[in-house]
């Protein structure tokens, strides 16, 4: 009899341990699912939902809404998520301007925000918040790594180019922070510009030995195609955004050989990443992109915290998030003091695997890299 009793007690204890954290948690995902930038949001969503599906945790509910890449729509969706859906955690925003519109007021209303992509400098420095976590990076990171790579590759006259908007200016200053050579020319293009003939002519005439460009989305596709046709041939360096899986197919062979900096790549050698790439491909019939990897990591971070604490106990849940006790597709994963990752940033090169264009890691640009704003952050 005694034996049975202990068994029951043990079972009860086990059940208690099991139920202690089995409080329901609701996540609101606001991301771009329609219009020109939809590819990025769809990737982030699919990566996130893949992890959710694999975990099969009945206590986790996800609500997904389309922000149409419009800041005012994003703000209203955030209001809806908070007021009507009563979510505990928000995530999903791709673009920095939308993040700036949504995040400060969401965290002020005591919601957690986990960024799957956008991480503007304002939220990393003075505007940091204990409820805001960036799983992806800080916006400047990949540009800084490109600067570091250009320096270590021995370039001394780099032509730099970005669209004329805040993220573009941040990218150029991020690049310059780690670039020690001279700037052969600096050009700000119109946002959404599609013809780069004028800029390419300037690059050709500048006598540069390398070109750093940050042109997200369709702008980058247009630039790389035209650059390849122009026969200028000065090596291109960029952050991974313009050479990511989602758009490589549209750039075609014009992208071959371009060096780009990224904190993730499908050939990072660890079991989690291998499984992620395989299952993503099996589930959706395409290779995962950077954004898919961020979405996947974000969901797994959230699930790991759910296993440790109840989201209603904000302090405990926050500590659980900070611990980042999950298997990241990037291998190790540590948050810095401002809750942005401290991570290695790789140099990738665009290659062809059979018929498919993809990236291969060829080196490491920065090791255990934190962002430049962490010191300004007071929590």
């Amino acid at each position: 009899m005694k034996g049975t009793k202990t068994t029951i007690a043990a079972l009860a204890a086990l059940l208690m341990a099991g139920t202690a954290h089995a409080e329901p948690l609701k996540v609101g995902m606001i991301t771009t699912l329609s219009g020109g930038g939809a590819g990025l949001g769809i990737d982030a969503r699919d990566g996130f939902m893949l992890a959710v599906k694999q975990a099969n945790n009945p206590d986790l509910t996800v609500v997904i809404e389309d922000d149409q890449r419009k800041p005012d729509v994003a703000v209203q969706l955030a209001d809806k998520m908070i007021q009507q859906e009563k979510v505990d955690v928000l995530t999903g925003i791709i673009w920095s301007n939308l993040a700036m519109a949504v995040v400060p007021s969401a965290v002020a209303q005591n919601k957690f925000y986990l960024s799957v992509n956008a991480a503007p400098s304002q939220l990393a420095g003075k505007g940091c918040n204990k409820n805001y976590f960036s799983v992806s990076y800080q916006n400047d990171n990949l540009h800084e790594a490109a600067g570091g790579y250009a320096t270590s590759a021995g370039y001394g006259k780099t032509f730099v180019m970005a669209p004329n908007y805040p993220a573009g200016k941040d990218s150029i200053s991020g690049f310059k922070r780690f670039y020690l050579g001279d700037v052969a020319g600096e050009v700000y293009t119109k946002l959404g510009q599609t013809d780069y003939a004028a800029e390419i002519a300037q690059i050709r005439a500048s006598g540069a030995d390398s070109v750093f460009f940050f042109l997200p989305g369709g702008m980058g596709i247009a630039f790389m195609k035209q650059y390849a046709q122009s026969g200028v041939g000065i090596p291109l360096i960029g952050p991974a955004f313009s050479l990511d899986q989602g758009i490589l197919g549209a750039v075609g062979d014009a992208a071959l050989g371009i060096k780009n900096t990224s904190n993730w790549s499908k050939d990072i050698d660890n079991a989690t990443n291998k499984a992620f790439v395989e299952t993503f491909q099996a589930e959706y019939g395409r290779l995962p992109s950077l954004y898919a990897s961020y979405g996947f990591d974000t969901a797994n971070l959230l699930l790991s915290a759910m296993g440790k604490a109840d989201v209603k106990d904000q302090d405990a849940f926050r500590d659980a998030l900070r611990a980042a006790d999950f298997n990241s597709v990037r291998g190790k994963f540590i948050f810095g003091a401002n809750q942005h990752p401290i991570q290695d940033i790789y140099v990738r090169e665009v290659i062809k695997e059979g018929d498919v264009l993809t990236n291969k890691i060829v080196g490491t640009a920065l090791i255990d890299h934190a962002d430049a704003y962490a010191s300004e952050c007071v929590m």
Partner: protein
Amino acid sequence: MTMNRETILNIILAVLLIAVPLIAQAMDEPFIITLATKVAIFGMAGVGLNIALGYGGLVSFGHAAFFGIGGYAAGILASHALNYEPIMSTPFEINGTTQMIVIWVVALIASAVIALLIGAITLRTSGVYFIMITLAFAQMIYYFAISWPAYGGEDGLSIYVRNSFPGLNTLDPLSFFGLCAVMLGIVLAFSAVLIRSRFGLALQGARQNGQRMMAVGIAPFRVRLVAFVISAMITAWAGALYADLNRFVSPSMMSWHMSGEIMVFVILGGVGRLFGPVAGAALYIMLEHLLGSTFEFWQLPLGILLLVVVLFARGGLIGLLAGERKHA
């Protein structure tokens, strides 16, 4: 005066607009209140445009510029006040403010000055040229806002805390809705009085026959310019409220999509109808809300529906429900 069908319809619309948020409050659905606030604000922007477009026949495809100017008036003044930075210190100090009334006055003056400048040039043209040149000016202001770093550029400007109005907790959704609804009411009343005034008659006369107006000694250009400026001011006022609704402004408030949307509200509801823009905004926002959460390609049925309305329901929603407009 006996009530015609349109007046009855207007009353029903007004009652609905006020009743829905109250019911939502009772049922603890605060997001419905936010949607109703959006309807009131967009309705107000549309009422502004309707003065130029509906009564004056001036198809402005650039009213988003004024909407944005109103928004930036709120954003800029509030950001200076919240950061304790004076807007200018020489020759005398001007500080920011979080008082809505001051913000509205600034929004009205700023939009009036800019509308006067734009109107003086654009009203020399007519027809499609007018449509396109108003678009061009809006695009100029849009690109200026994107590349101007001082107030956030494309990132926009966060207000963090809604600006204040004496005796009101503006952060409470229902109170803020009430404020917007009252402003909409004021604007509607003003618009109703305006079109019945001598000025309003001159404006409608200038739309139908500019030459005849000149013959009776009224300069259509001046009448149109005044109408354009008034129209812009009302839209800017709505913009200031919209900034407070979202606690955020960005250049996207000035994009040509926004101009198109404000125009859609007016046409969908019924051009030159007093309550047309309100009805149009309500229908559009309802569709966006219902379709958006059910179907990934929700803009497809929205487009088809819009098309059907234009092709088969002439005179917009009000026209459909209240019949042809009676010509004065």
